[in-house]
């Protein structure tokens, strides 16, 4: 991450604009490693000011993929804070910019959730998830969006 992803100016700009950025060195911070259940690095946690974890990124990601996942994490942070419209807008941006990726599929899943939570209209959920199944039929997020009906 220090060689390729973090030095990328797009990553630096996105991270600095949207987050407070903290680096924890695992060898000298055993208590935090235990608290945040870090078993492997790279390991990026998006948390709030009370230490609650909203999203986690494990393993190396390219700059493009990392920005997509940071944006997903920001959306999850907003969703958990019940800022549903802002969360949906964030997920829609990921779905638009990273359409043909795993992150795009994940974003499409959460668009449905955020739009439903904002409106309480099940049609908003189903229309988003129908699009997910159509556009990303082989993704795990499409499988998660296909709720089996009772026979």
């Amino acid at each position, binding site marked *: 991450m220090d060689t390729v992803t973090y030095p*990328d100016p797009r*990553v630096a*700009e996105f991270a600095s604009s949207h987050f407070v*950025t903290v*680096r924890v060195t*695992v060898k000298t911070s055993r208590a935090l490693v235990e608290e945040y259940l870090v078993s492997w690095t*790279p390991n990026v946690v998006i948390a*709030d000011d009370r230490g609650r974890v*909203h999203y986690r990124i494990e393993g190396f990601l390219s700059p493009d993929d990392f920005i997509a996942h940071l944006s997903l994490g920001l959306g999850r*942070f907003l969703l958990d804070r019940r800022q549903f419209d802002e969360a949906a807008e964030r997920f829609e941006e990921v779905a638009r910019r990273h359409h043909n990726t795993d992150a795009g599929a994940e974003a499409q899943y959460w668009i449905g959730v955020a739009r439903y939570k904002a409106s309480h209209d099940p049609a908003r959920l189903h229309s988003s998830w129908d699009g997910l199944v159509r556009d990303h039929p082989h993704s795990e997020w499409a499988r998660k969006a296909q709720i089996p009906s009772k026979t």
Partner: protein
Amino acid sequence: MPAQAEQIAWDTSLEHGRELAAREGKAVLIDFSAAPV
């Protein structure tokens, strides 16, 4: 001469990062790294 790329300004204190996040209404991005800043 090309413009210098922006670098991430890592805070090394999570406690300070949380205080800043509370003031600014932001999330904290915590990079658990094998390498020190």
